[in-house]
């Protein structure tokens, strides 16, 4: 049993890492550079100094939120592709409240207000596909993709037409709710975008873990994701749970917006999400839909991203993008749980469909049985 657990949980990431290194070596060589030197530069530019660490932490902060968002969705058997727009909506919500509150608002209330606004805005963007799914059986993948277009276009319109500072794509700076950078406490982080929202996000990770594994809502949410039929049998209200899962998922993605808006720039800028929502899917898969795994995966992808910048003078940034793809493939291929998740998300439809299996789906189909 112990051998199996080891082989299933520890080895796959190590193998995936090995595949990434070798694939990276080959790509670097193909580009005519020395792999050793490139990897060294990558390491120095990320974990080699306080600035690099700060940048990694900054990027990981957003990715953790979008990763958690996707992970919570997948735990409920729902594939939320909308984290990108939920993240943008959250950032926008935080910026709006930050702009509306007077500068004299006590700091703690201002931050709480902005953070709540981020969560609510993201939750709103997530609730729509949830309700459409629960009420009409509309496929959440399609709805969340459509929501990306709608929400991003709407935000773009609002910013471009109503709120932007001339000749820019961003809103005015918030007056209240800004979070200080790490460099305000540790001078070594000077220049890096890392800020105290990472503490808030660490608390969110803990909260997500508690929600998933310690509350009745989480118990029911995971049940719906694993076996909707059994959850229904267990008295779980499927439609309500689906709506709740996507709403919570949206709120988590929205919370990622505070990192940029409250912690980094102090304003909402069109396009700030920059793919972090989509990368959240990879983070969730690699993190195996576990909050702690998501945190680790977010740090890993953030390292790749920041490292890609550091080695950008040597190899084109597409190399890092290829490596991201390799990570996802390697993990998807090596972790049975991920394969199952993907299959479930792709194949199992719940909600409006008839859960009755045809004919004799009895003991004869014992999955684990070898008799």
């Amino acid at each position, binding site marked *: *049993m112990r*051998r*199996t657990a080891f082989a299933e949980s520890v080895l796959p990431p190590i193998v995936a890492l090995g595949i990434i290194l070798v694939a990276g070596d080959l790509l670097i060589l193909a580009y005519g550079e020395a792999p050793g030197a490139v990897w060294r530069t990558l390491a120095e530019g990320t974990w080699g100094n306080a600035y690099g660490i700060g940048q990694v932490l900054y990027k990981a902060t957003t990715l953790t939120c979008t990763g958690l968002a996707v992970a919570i969705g997948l735990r409920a058997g729902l594939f939320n592709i909308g984290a990108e727009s939920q993240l943008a909506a959250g950032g926008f919500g935080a910026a709006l409240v930050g702009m509306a509150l007077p500068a004299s608002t006590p700091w703690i209330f201002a931050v709480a207000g902005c953070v709540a606004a981020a969560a609510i805005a993201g939750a709103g963007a997530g609730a729509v596909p949830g309700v459409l799914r629960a009420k009409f059986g509309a496929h959440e993948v399609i709805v969340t993709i459509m929501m990306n277009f709608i929400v991003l276009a709407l935000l773009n319109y609002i910013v471009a037409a109503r709120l932007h500072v001339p000749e820019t794509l961003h809103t005015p700076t918030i007056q209240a709710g800004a979070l200080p950078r790490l460099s305000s406490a540790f001078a070594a982080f000077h220049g890096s975008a890392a800020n105290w929202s990472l503490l808030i996000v660490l608390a969110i990770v803990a909260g997500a873990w*508690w929600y998933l594994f*310690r*509350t*009745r809502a989480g*118990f*029911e949410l*995971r*049940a719906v994701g*694993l*076996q909707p*039929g*059994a*959850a*229904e*049998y*267990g*008295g779980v*209200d499927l439609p309500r749970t689906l709506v709740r899962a996507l709403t919570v998922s949206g709120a988590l993605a929205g919370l990622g917006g505070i990192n940029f808006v409250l912690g980094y720039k102090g304003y909402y800028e069109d396009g700030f999400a920059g793919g972090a929502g989509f990368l959240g899917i990879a983070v969730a898969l690699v993190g195996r839909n576990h909050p702690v795994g998501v945190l680790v995966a977010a740090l890993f992808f953030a390292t790749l991203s920041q490292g890609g910048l550091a080695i950008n003078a040597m190899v084109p940034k597409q190399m890092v993008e290829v490596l991201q793809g390799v990570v996802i493939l390697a993990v998807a291929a090596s972790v049975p749980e991920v394969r199952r998740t993907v299959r479930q998300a792709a194949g199992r439809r719940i909600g409006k469909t*008839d*859960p*009755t*299996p*045809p*004919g*004799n*789906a*009895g*003991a*004869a*189909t*014992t*999955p*684990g*049985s*070898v*008799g």
Partner: protein
Amino acid sequence: MTAPARTPVPAVRMTGIVKRFGAVLANRDAGIEVAQGEIHALVGENGAGKSTLMKILSGMQPADAGRVEVGGRDVTGWTTAQAIAAGVGMVHQHFMLVPTLTVAENVVLGREPVSVGTFDRARAVRDVEELSKQSGLVVHPERLVADLSVGEAQRVEILKTLYRGARILLLDEPTAVLSPPEVAELWGVLRRVRVAGTTIVLITHKLDEVMNVTERITVMRHGETVARMATSETTPEGIARAMVGRDVRLGGGAPASAGAAAAKPAGEGLAVHNLMVRGARVEKAVNDISFSIAPGEILGIAGVEGNGQTELLEAMAGLRPVTAGSIAIGGRDVTGASVRARGDAGLSHIPEDRHNRGLILEYSVADNLILGLQHRYVKGASLDRAAIEANAAKQIAEFDIRPANPSLAVRALSGGNQQKVVIARELSRDFAALIAAQPTRGVDVGAIEFIHDALRRARDAGKAILLVSAELREVLDLSDRVAVMYGGRLVVTLPRSGANEDVLGPYMTGARREVA
């Protein structure tokens, strides 16, 4: 081992077979020897390694070690194609037929008769008719497979195997989906086929079948071959002992406890009135059913699967909407109530499909033991883990769930222990009425005894119990009254004393009906 082999060279001889799936040892030193032209039973509990052994024989999986001989020839490690060519054919539990093709087309699929480069349909029909006559497997060759009953579909499967020239026929639990007359017919066919020289291996865990039709028996337990015996020299108890490794009490005991019947409290435990339910494909899957079960009574519903039992059970449990009619628990109407509200009103439910309904396989034993009761295990904003653990410890001890590890995922348990988790949960909650659907399906002999006792105890404690089972024996063993469901209706309801297999059989096939 006293039964003499009819020919010196056995049809099949497998020795020292080892097969590993990851950490699971499915076969270890397993073996079987089948003489030419005999009907041989391969028995064992679920998970004993029977199917694995037969899959190795039919070339679907390679063995990790050991030797496979067919007709004296070493064929270890052969492929399915080679196995078919050598005349080894397997009839699976799950039919592998194309529903949109005719019987004849299905039978010849892959070996179509050809004339002038095109498919010779007329010859296919002729061939199949001929084969059908020889073997006694009667199916009209030009009917669509989609229109066939389960029993007929199975005949087509066997025909298909024979058409490919099978001399050794492997049948995996062939009676699981058949009604008693269909079972009787199948035995007739197998005997005829055997007379024609075909060797038959029957994988089963039903001991009456073994006693009825086979000549010799190989018993497997935990992946190992533990006994070989001649049917004529053993008893069901002897076989069961070999399967389980200890003494097992088989069958009824006291059919319906006379004492309980006498002390039956008055009133309505569980009742439905004029219930109509729509199915996935059928408009009236449940067609105007009414019955009432008194506290301390078990009403058993027998019938071939697919006659509306599933829809009836789901409607009663709140998992499927009702078109018309009403459902009441203890006299209280719950027709429109949610699953949870029904549970709180005193309904307990052992679902027919524990893998899709009754258990969350990835969840721990402890978590599964509160499924449906999670709202009662809340402390503040979170689940009360301490209470959940305490409940698990109690149930595991009381119902002897093994291994006794509350944090183990239920997936890792054997079928019998999985079902014990369901039973433990449903029988230990506070309930007045119980729906028990296929309570012992896929459960090994030892656990069946335990589950039946538990149901009787519940009955004696004054619970109203609806038992639905495809196993007629089980219905007869446990019920105070027996009903038969056919085509969405209860076609007959009899007191236990008036029911037996011969009486019920015609109702189960729809040959007889009377307004219940």
